[in-house]
Structure formats: C-alpha cells, structure tokens
C-alpha cells in the first residue's frame, strides 16, 4: 500500500489529494524528511499524470474512473468467507482502546468506544465500551440461573429457557459509565473523544421487564423500596437499584442489537436500568433481591461516590443527567480543506428525551439549533447534525442539549462551581474542540 494512487477516499483534483493524511501530518509535525520527499515526488508525478490523462493532453480524469478498478474486473468472494461477518479491512483503526496508565490491571479496567468514527444512534456490539471490575467471563447459558428473593411471596429461580419464554420487550437505550469524562474534571488530560466520552454506547436491548418478574415473585410493595442486583462473575458485583427505576422501565436483558449479549457485556443476562449509570446495569446477572434499605455495596460506598468540595460524598448518585458532545470533527482529527462540513454529535439524557441541541462555533458566544435525526427516544442517544462552512479561521466548537424536563447541559465553569473538580463521576459539562487555522482539532477547556 505504499502506492499512493491506491490510497482511497480522496477526490483526485488537487496534488495534495494524492498525499496520505499520515504523510501530510508527518510533514507538518516534523518537516520533510528524505523518505517523505521521495513520497512527495511520487505523489506529484501521480497527480500530474492524472491531470494530463493517458494521452498527455486531457485534464483531471480520475484514474479510479477511467482505469476501471480491479474489483470491477474480477470475481468477488464467495458466501461464508466469514460465517460471522466482520468490518472491512479499511476500518481497522476503529476499535476499542485503553487509556494508557489509567488502570494498573487489565481485569479492572476500561476500553473506550471509538465515537469519533461511528454514525447514528446505535453502537455496534463489538465496539460497545468495556468496564470490568474483576475480568469478564463467558458463562454456559444452560447453567446460568436468575434468583429472585427477599421481600417476595416466594423466592424463585429461572433458567435462561424460562426467561426467554416470558413476554419480552425490545428497547433502545444509552449506557454511560458514571465515570465517563472523569479524566477531564481538572484539566484536559486526553486527546480524543474516544477517551473523553467513550464510556458511552447505545443498543437495542431485548428481555423481560423487571416489573413482570417481581410481580411473578409476588413483591411486597408495602415494604419494598430497593432492589439489589448481583452478578455471577468472580466479583459478584452488586448495586442497589431504586425500586422506582426498577418498576418503571428496567429490563432483565439477554438480547443486544438483535443477537445475544456479548460476553464482555454480560452474556447471557444483564440488568438494563435506563437513564442510570452503567455500573448499575449488572452484567452476568444472577440475583435480584427485594429489600427495604440500600445495601452500601463496594461500588456505592468506596467507588461511584462523588466527592464534594465540603469533603462529603454523594452516595447513590445514579442518574446520568443530560449531556452532548460533537463526535466529528473532534479532538485529534484534521480538516484537510476549507468549505462545508457537517458537524455531527450525540445527545442524551437519563431523565427523558432530547428536546433541543444547539451548536456554537465561537466558544459559546452564539448558538444555533442543530438538526435532530430521528427517532428521538427517551434515555437513548440522539444524533444531531449542524451545517458549517469553514473558511479556515480558528473556531471553538461546542454543543449543548436541553432535555424534556427543561434541563440545560451546563458549561464546565458552571458545573465545577457547584461540584468542584474531585468528584470523579457525573461530569456532563459542555465539551470544547478547538479548530486551528491549520485544520487541526484539539481538546481544550475554556475559562
């Protein structure tokens, strides 16, 4: 692939279009080296040849058009080359990634979703972010059980077969870690939206409403106030769920985007608690206990507690308040030319649906409404788009969301005025991307 003519994707109109982005960036970062000069010469020759055309007189015929490409002149591959399909080899950059140094072990760690290159409102299951507390497991579904006990008429046990026979629902919801954007409380710490906002994904989940299972077990509604959800993995992760959430729209889910859950996401069974932070969506779910007091489990007493400036901790902070972010263009990317761009991003709210998204290109001085792409669903990601004609000036790109309760996403300054910078969790501040005159996009904070 050193053949620059084979570099796909750019219009073949100007000589710079024959340069790979890596080469352009490399030259801008550290100048023209001998090896790069050689590449440049080759590219210019290619460009010249393309402009002259095959007879040396005609201008700007695209060789990928006039010289019919090899894939148009050969037999394609057979069915079942990949019995389980996979992305094109040209998409190999778009994978989950870790933030180096964030955690010392890979079993209690995070991999981030590459939001900068995704479209629409659904995250491909293989790119759904990972957060494990003691590694992930791949459980034999025939040996998996769900127990319901506590303040119920009779404790029950369900097999997967039982659960998959029950009345099911399918709902699209976002899943955001409470610690998403945690690295950015004090200052800019990471370069791209994958690391600033990539503990965010969205899927269609299929399963049984928790309310139905609790009804089946005969929940004691006079005394019941909380649910404990518990996983079957080594950590047997536990979280207290507000009964209000559990009865409203929580699901015991086995399906994700039309197939079974991925093991990293809780196969064969996980809890879905729409609008609530991801840690409460207990994976490998083995038990729901009905109780009248919260449990103060490790992940709601030692972690996932929000430190306030007065030294107190907010416990049971659960709801993910309204938040939005521009995903393209975003930090670590580059605009190659001036002209039209479709600024695109995501907005969501744990308290309802997205009512409005506004975009500013001047750091918050002026805001104009973005287009919301449908469907706009409660507690789901909403894709927004915004027309922008970039004339090569410095710009500060921001987005802000208003949700169906009327709540407006705060600026970073407003958020830290109340919460300080040490609460780790629930950073839903407006994100700023700075576009330089060189087209480079960088993560910045203002104020």
């Amino acid at each position, binding site marked *: 692939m050193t053949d620059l003519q084979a570099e796909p994707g750019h219009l073949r109109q100007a000589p710079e279009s024959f340069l790979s982005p*890596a080469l352009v960036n490399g030259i801008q970062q550290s100048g023209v080296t001998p*090896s790069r000069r050689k590449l440049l010469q080759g590219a210019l020759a290619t460009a010249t040849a393309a402009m002259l055309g095959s007879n040396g007189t005609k201008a700007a015929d695209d060789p990928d058009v006039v010289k019919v490409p090899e894939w148009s002149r050969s037999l394609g591959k057979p069915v079942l080359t990949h019995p389980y399909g996979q992305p094109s080899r040209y998409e190999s950059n778009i994978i989950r990634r870790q933030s180096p140094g964030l955690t010392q072990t890979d079993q209690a760690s995070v991999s981030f979703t590459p939001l900068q290159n995704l479209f629409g409102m659904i995250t491909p299951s293989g790119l759904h972010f990972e957060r494990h507390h003691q590694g992930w497991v791949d459980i034999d579904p025939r040996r998996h059980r769900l*127990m319901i006990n506590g303040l119920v008429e009779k404790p029950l046990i369900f097999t997967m077969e039982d659960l998959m026979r029950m009345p099911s629902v399918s709902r699209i919801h976002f899943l955001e870690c409470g610690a998403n954007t945690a690295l950015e409380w004090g200052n800019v710490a990471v370069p791209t939206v994958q690391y600033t906002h990539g503990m965010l994904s969205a899927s269609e989940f299929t399963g049984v409403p928790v309310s139905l299972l609790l009804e089946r077990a005969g929940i004691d509604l006079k005394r019941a106030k909380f649910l404990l959800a518990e996983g079957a993995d080594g950590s047997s992760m536990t979280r207290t769920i507000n009964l209000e959430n559990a009865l409203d729209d929580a699901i015991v889910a086995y399906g994700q985007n039309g197939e079974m859950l991925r093991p990293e996401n809780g196969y064969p069974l996980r809890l879905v608690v729409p609008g609530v932070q991801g840690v409460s969506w207990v994976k490998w779910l083995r038990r729901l206990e009905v109780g009248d007091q919260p449990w103060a489990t*490790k992940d709601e007493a030692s972690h996932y507690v929000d430190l306030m400036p007065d030294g107190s901790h907010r416990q049971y902070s659960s709801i993910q308040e309204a938040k939005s972010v521009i995903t393209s263009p975003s930090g670590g990317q580059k605009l190659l030319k001036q002209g039209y761009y479709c600024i695109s991003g995501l907005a969501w709210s744990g308290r309802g649906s997205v009512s409005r998204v506004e975009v500013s290109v001047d750091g918050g001085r002026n805001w104009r409404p973005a287009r919301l792409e449908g469907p706009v669903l409660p507690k789901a990601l909403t894709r927004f788009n915004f027309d922008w004609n970039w004339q090569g000036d410095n710009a500060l790109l921001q987005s802000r969301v208003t949700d169906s309760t009327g709540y407006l996403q705060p600026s970073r300054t407003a958020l830290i005025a109340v919460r300080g910078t040490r609460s780790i969790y629930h950073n839903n501040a407006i994100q700023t991307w700075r576009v330089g005159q060189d087209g480079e996009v960088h993560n910045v904070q203002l104020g």
Partner: protein
Amino acid sequence: MSNWVNGLLAAAILIPPHAGAAGLPAGVDEIGRVASSAEVRAWDIDVRPDFAGLPPGSGDVWAGEEIWLEKCASCHGDFGDSNEVFAPIVLGNVTEDDIAAGNVASLKDPAAVRTTLMKVATLSTLWDYIYRAMPWNAPKSLTPDEVYALLAYILNLGYVVDDDFVLSDDTIHAAQARMPNRNGMRDDHGLWSVDGEPDVVSQGCQTDCIVNSKVSSSLPAYAMNAHGNLAEQSRAWGPYPGLWTAPEAAGGAPELVAAEIPTDAEQTDSPTQILNAAGCMGCHQMAGQLVGPGFDAVRERYAGDEHVAYLKTKITQGGAGVWGSIPMPGVPLQSDDLDRIVAWMTASKVP
C-alpha cells in the same frame, strides 16, 4: 429519599400491565420455580449496613495478619497502603478527632490521598466485599472467620481498633462506631431519583453571550502521543483523518503509511483463506477432482521452485487442456497472495 412516597405511588400506578395476579398473561405465573432455602442461602451472601445477612464468626488482628501476608499483601502491600495495583486501603490522613466526629476532615483538602478507610462509611461494605470478591484471583475462597480476621487487621492498620481486638458479629457494632468517615455520606441530592432536582441550573443565552472563551487548558505537544499515534485511531480515509502524533520511525514514513491499512497478506493467515477469498474453492477442493483438479494433485505435480513462474502465469491468466477441457478463468490475485499461494503449491514437502 424524599421521593419515596411519590416513588411508591408511581410504582403502584406503573406496575400494570403486569400488575396483580390477574395482570400476568395466562401461564406466565407457572414459569420458573420456587427456590429452596439451601439455594437461597448459597447465593444470598450480601451484608447490609445494619449487618443483616452477616454470618456468625470471629477473627483477631494476628490471625488476620497471617492471612493478609499470604493472600493480600502482594497486591495491597504488607500494610495495606500500597498504590501499586489498587488504591490504598489504609493510612492517608485520619485523626482521632475524625474518628470521634465520624468525618474525615482531610477530604476537604484537594491534595489529600483518598484511601478506602478515609471514604467508606459502613463496615458492612468491607466485610461483604472481601467475602464475595477477594482474593483477586480466587474470589469466595475465604471462610467467614478469615474475613473477620482480615478485617480486624485492616481496621488495626487504620487505628480504628487496638492490637488485641477480636472482630466478630457481636463486636462489629463497636468497630462500626469508630469508622472514621461514618457520617461522611449524603443521599439528599438530585441524582438518586429520576425525578430528582438538578444541582446545576444554566441559563440559555443564545446570541452575543458574555463568555470567557480563552483557552485555559489543552494538551502540551509532548503529551499528544501519550495515547499512541492518533493517525492510527481515526478512519484512515475520509474527511477527518487523525493527526500524526508519533515520532517518525527509523526508515521514514513509507512503513508507517503502509501500516495504516493492512494488506491482504497481513489479514490472511493461511493458504486456505486466500483460496477461499479468491473464489478458488468454487471449482477446486483440497483433495480430489471437483470441476478442476484437487490441490493435492496440483501440489504433487508442481512441487519444486522451477514451477513457480509457470504456476503464476496459469493462475493469473487461466488456461485449459492440462487437467481437462473445462477452462479456468484467470484469477487476479494480489501479488502478495499470489506469492504465498504459489510458494505453498510448489513446496516440495506437503506439510
């Protein structure tokens, strides 16, 4: 939890369409079975802040130290203060005044290290977690007495209990009364309930807003590559290529450019996959005649380097009459793949 009354009212309203015995579709109330008491005991191991669920037992500081050194110290350090693998459990800045008040004052200090014992308000949390999830690589292998002993050792390291303290289901209440941050948690905030009151309220100015748009923080140039080369972390083509942040490798850019998009050869790790991908297996199979000859026969006839050039021509240009009358179309394999396939076909010894 001021919303509890409302929450329950809402729950009572929301529970249909599944509400009431009559609310479940016919037959659903027969799915699942009643759990036995032994089954519930085996899984219901949680311990609440009021110590409901705590099994009887006891352990002292000295027994705890022995188990600690054997099973815990490698990650947490001999004295529970290591920051190597996990956040420290003990030490940090906790005073006798904090223990008396039940509030760790140094949590107000932005620079303070935050250890587990500085944060956690409820001793049940630690007992429950150690019992269900520790040690790291062998969760649920500790007996209740071992958990009591380990917790006695941790509390002793944190000056919560004396050297001769014996922690048990009885004395745990006294230990709880000395937890340094036992009064440090609040749940009177808007993030517990979906109807909670937001704590940050913003105005929606839309034009000529007065804002401070001075950049106050950005990544320094030396940190741009701390997450790896960003050029390899965004789609390698299209309108938004990633910034090149890596230092140039020895030998220059071509290798790095080539690394952006893997070639077929890099992604294909066996001749079988190349043959499959190129459509060869529609007419050939590994052993025995199909439309064309089996690859076993091809490899037998053309073993040896002298056949390389001939086979390359035959594969790319096609032909007829060698193995039969059905012509084979030319297969435009990429050169890497062609090299690999022909090398495989001419290898003198079939692996």
